[in-house]
């Protein structure tokens, strides 16, 4: 039971992060490789703030931290070419990981920040797995609802139009830079909150929490979901979360496990390429 609750919690946390990343990759058509930094910003905000301000303000701070990083990065989207933007976000992601590893006074360096208090609100503490699953269900549910409904409404339509054809968008008297900033803020906010939840769940944060691996995982999940079916964030999460677990059940989690996992991921990505869905094509 605990094992399934663990998977459920991770799935929920990743679902919100992937919904945010999909906003950038699918709606914004950006080759965005710094989702790990957004996740890490949220996680560190909780690690540093939960003890000072309490759980809910820390989670809000996690969203705000992600939103700020996301908005700053997306502000550059209209100023650089698509391939430069991919390199820019990759560079930011690498610098972020490096800073998290070396700014020991703030991040704890390679040892990270342990002992993050359990999520609590109005005297109720999410101490066990079941309770935390409930917290993540509520937070991820609210976050997902906010993202999905914004996506379907006028804001989402305008954001997609701005990403699809900047000049046409401008010739309607609309400001594409604001659209980019807001896209980055909402996406970053969603990824930041999921990073914050992750920190609460593990009770520990280090450089790997928002590292390059996380960035690639989130990007791959977002692309997988988008490629399978428009806006199907769950698909990417299910594939990349369940493949290692299935491998574990068929006793392939030894040395061959990671290789087979990468092989499966590679095959799925090839299938996606053959299906010809367009993502990150700004």
């Amino acid at each position, binding site marked *: 039971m605990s094992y399934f609750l663990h998977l459920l919690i991770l799935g929920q946390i990743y679902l919100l992060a992937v919904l945010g990343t999909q906003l950038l990759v699918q709606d914004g058509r950006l080759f965005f490789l710094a989702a790990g930094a957004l996740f890490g910003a949220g996680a560190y905000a909780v690690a540093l703030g939960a003890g000072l301000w309490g759980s809910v303000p820390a989670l809000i701070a996690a969203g705000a931290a992600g939103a700020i990083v996301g908005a700053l990065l997306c502000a550059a989207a209209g100023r650089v070419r698509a391939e430069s933007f991919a390199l820019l976000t990759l560079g930011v992601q690498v610098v972020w990981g490096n800073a998290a590893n070396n700014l020991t006074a703030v991040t704890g360096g390679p040892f990270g920040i342990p002992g993050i208090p359990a999520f609590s609100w109005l005297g109720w503490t999410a101490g066990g797995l079941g309770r935390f699953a409930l917290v993540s269900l509520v937070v991820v549910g609210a976050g997902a609802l*906010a993202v999905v*409904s*914004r996506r379907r*409404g*006028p*804001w989402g*339509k*305008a954001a*997609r*139009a701005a990403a*699809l*054809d900047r*000049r*046409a*968008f*401008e*010739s*309607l*008297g*609309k*400001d*594409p830079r*604001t*659209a980019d900033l*807001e896209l980055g*803020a*909402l996406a970053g906010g969603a990824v930041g909150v999921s990073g914050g939840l992750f920190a609460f769940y593990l009770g520990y944060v280090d450089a790997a929490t928002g590292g390059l691996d996380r960035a690639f995982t989130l990007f791959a999940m977002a692309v997988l979901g988008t490629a399978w079916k428009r806006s199907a964030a769950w698909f990417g999460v299910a594939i990349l979360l369940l493949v290692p677990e299935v491998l574990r059940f068929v006793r392939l989690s030894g040395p061959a496990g990671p290789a087979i996992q990468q092989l499966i991921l590679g095959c799925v990505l090839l299938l996606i390429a053959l299906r010809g869905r367009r993502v990150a094509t700004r």
Partner: protein
Amino acid sequence: MPVREPTTALSFTDVRVQVRGRELLALASLQVELRAGSVLGVVGANGSGKTTLLNTLGGFLRQSSGTISLLGKVVDRLPPWRRFKLGVGRLWQDLRLFDDVGSIDNVALAIRASADERLWSALLKPKQLARRDLDAAKAAESVLGRLDVRHDWHTPVANLSDGQRKWVALARATAVRRDLVFLDEPASGLDAVGRATAERFILDLRGEGAAVVVVEHDLSFLSRVADEVLHLDQGTCAAYGGAPEVLRRLLPRSPSRPGLE
């Protein structure tokens, strides 16, 4: 629609455009003033600078010298979206429709107020916004209906014919009141009936008091809609004046100059 006051809608003086040291447009000592309720035709062979001129007026290319004024405001330092927000519309030569969505969504995007597309509005006033979004869709239906666009309005515009796409683009460019409209080859790719409709469309815009700049290769089409004509040749002004005079010089020569006809 109420008729607008007759004022100067567009003026530009001594406009030059250089990109990486190459002069794309050199309209030195040319002063153009287009009053509301009149049509300026822009003609010239391919590569003569017609679209470059529209891009410069719209702010997509920055002039290296000269002054541009749109609807009474000097716009030299304004980004494109601020220029168009003044009440300017544009039909693009390559249409630039949002291909993934239907005609209604393309037109509704032009109708919807920018404030209704802000994130804070979406987060704080979702119900009001949903209602206004429906209103925008209804208004888009009405615009498409007025233009007699008959295809399925929800079909992604990527799946429409060139002619259908042209009408959606025209509807989008003029979905809300525009006092100045740039039309880049509005008649190209249309059949005779379509051309006649396009002609009537431009004359209606003029009748409502809008100033219209029409870039067009078809000189006979221009002769029926334009009050003034600017003839460009390799980025310079070859002739500028009343449509009958300028076109009279060009029309007899057009068979030997395929770039113009």
